[in-house]
């Protein structure tokens, strides 16, 4: 009995003994161990801020989202700010949804059709190179520069004025590169034999593209769209000069009634305000925004993981 127990015990800690002999073997082995230990510590440092941020936002925002006071709990999502901004953030939530839906309605068709053209139709490398290069450049442009461009081009030059239309078009510009590149990747991953099979059956290129290729690439496309939506949902800088801010929901598409609030802008406005309860509301809004963005990102990752597993 005792013998067996001892052997289990020594087996369990065998790796420890092995490891000590390894470390004692030479200076190089010690250096190897120290290097690995340092890297482990660094990884802990890298991921620590994520948990700190979630903890901070959740610990203060929790009572906004689940409390029972004025403008807390379900009221936080369903009421307008009202006098002294004591109510909820319904204006911001409705505004963000409107902006994202309008931006998607413009941005997704443009980028998906563009990706289809350069991947399925463009014969020369030139068109493809130009489009890939410009979309990469567009992805790298600072969001405030796109905001300033939206202000001068959409709001001033096209006379749209600040509001929901100018704001969502600006967001659509930011959406294009992400969706275009991920759709292109998804289309590239579709096996050539599928297309050839369809063409051999007498289908035109157009119907092959939409009925066969796009159907196979659809999960990848959804991933790209979700990632892009998650990104534009949290953008503040492009909206400051294009969407304005408002305490109610927009009533028209263009003009002074079209100013629209968004969750990120509301967080910014509330956190810069010295009033204590607005700071708490900012945390609540940040918690809501973070949950939405993280949910979208996780769903996108699950879809893409499932797809890669199926293809491999």
């Amino acid at each position, binding site marked *: 009995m005792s013998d067996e127990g001892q052997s289990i015990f020594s087996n369990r800690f065998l790796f420890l003994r092995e490891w000590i002999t390894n470390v004692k073997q030479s200076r*190089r*082995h010690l*250096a*190897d161990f120290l*290097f690995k230990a340092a*890297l*482990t510590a*660094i*990884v802990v*440092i*890298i*991921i620590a801020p*994520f948990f700190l*941020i979630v903890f*901070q*936002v959740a610990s203060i925002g929790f009572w906004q989202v689940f409390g029972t006071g004025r403008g807390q709990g379900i009221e936080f999502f369903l009421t307008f700010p009202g006098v002294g901004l004591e109510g909820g953030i319904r204006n911001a939530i409705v505004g963000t949804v409107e902006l994202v839906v309008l931006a998607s309605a413009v941005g997704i*068709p*443009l*980028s998906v059709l*563009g990706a289809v*053209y350069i991947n399925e*139709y463009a014969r020369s490398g030139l*068109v493809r190179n130009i*489009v890939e*290069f410009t979309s990469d*450049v567009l*992805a*790298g*442009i*600072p*969001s*405030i*520069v796109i905001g300033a*461009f939206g*202000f*001068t*081009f959409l709001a001033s030059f096209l006379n749209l004025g600040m509001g929901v239309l100018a704001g969502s078009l600006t967001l659509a510009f930011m959406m*294009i590169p992400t969706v275009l590149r991920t759709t292109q990747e998804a289309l590239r991953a579709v096996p050539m034999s599928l297309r050839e099979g369809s063409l051999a059956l007498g*289908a*035109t*290129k*157009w*119907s092959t593209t939409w009925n066969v290729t796009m159907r196979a690439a659809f999960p990848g496309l959804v991933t790209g769209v979700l990632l892009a939506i998650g990104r534009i949902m*949290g*953008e*503040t*800088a492009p909206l*400051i000069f294009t969407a304005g801010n408002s305490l109610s929901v927009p009533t028209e598409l263009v003009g002074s009634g079209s100013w629209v609030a968004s969750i*990120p802008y509301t*967080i*910014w406005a509330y*956190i810069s305000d010295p009033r204590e309860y607005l700071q708490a509301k*900012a945390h609540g809004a*940040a918690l809501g*925004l*973070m949950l939405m*963005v*993280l949910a*979208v*990102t996780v769903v996108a990752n699950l879809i893409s993981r499932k797809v890669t597993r199926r293809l491999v």
Partner: protein
Amino acid sequence: MSDSSETPNVAEASGEAQEGIDTGSPLAGFANRLLKPLRDFVKADTPGRIDKAGKAALILPTMASTLIIILILGFLWYEATPIFLDPSGGPGIIVSPTWDPNRNLYGIAIFIVGSFLCTGIAIGIAVPLGVSGAIFLSEFCPMRLRTLIKMIMEMMAAIPSIVYGLWAYVVMVPYIRNVMAPELQSNLLTSWMPWFQGSTNGLSLLAGGLILAIMLLPTVVTITSDALLTVPRTLREASLALGATQSETARKIVLSAALPGVGAAIVLSLGRAVGETMAILMVTGNSLQIPYTLFDTTYVMTSIITNQLGYAFVFPLWRSALFAVALILLIISICFTVVAKLFIRWGMKTRGYI
């Protein structure tokens, strides 16, 4: 029925007739080249027509991103020209340090210096940490843990910058004011260092650099670890077989083989760092001075646009100066993207893909 059987015949007949005419004359040949797709379109049946029309209609969306870039360049250039042509402005504003719209002084050197210092601090922290983290992920990490950490990285990359800014403003700024600055300034080891001098209210260059570093880490780690994972297994095995330890293999073989990927990661994160707006805006204090210590407040390029464009749009010169800042930001970001693409190209070349 009879209609559909006749139309193709008519189209064919007219096509033959035209082809018969154009022999010789170059002008007619050109016209024929233009008309041929049209004639093909008329000749085709319904699916064929959809096919041809659809192909033509796709060209406009394809050009969308190119068109947007051209529009952005054009409009920022158009808005920025007044300040470059005006006697009180000129190209000299890039090196002139005084920003005072009331006296028509539009020097933007402060913002450029502020941006570069912030970015420098952030890159100085994020690149060593991020590359080490990526080495851990790709070389030593168990598969399950790697999936978990990668997922956390993706979430970190997805958190909106305003939330980072909120956290930095509420947690990090008081921490720097109450803990970090007194500690560093009272401690014998660090108190003499010139870059730790000065009183602070927490809103500082250091806070900006730190939050920026935290925001950059996911990008650096993800791109670098992807680059490390594509290093062929045989290289690692050869190194281990020669008696190198795992850490020596990782540092000297794998890292140097993945150097182009690491370079691309650094340049891409540089671009993101220069263009980051909201988080930096909330924690750097935004005062018009060149920072001399880490605890001084500073003003970066993105912040000045965010803070003042709303007031400036009725003053042509002021507005134009802000758009000049935006134009400089745009040019910097384009340069970084080009350099990153060159790094990626170099990496593909070393693997023999091109």
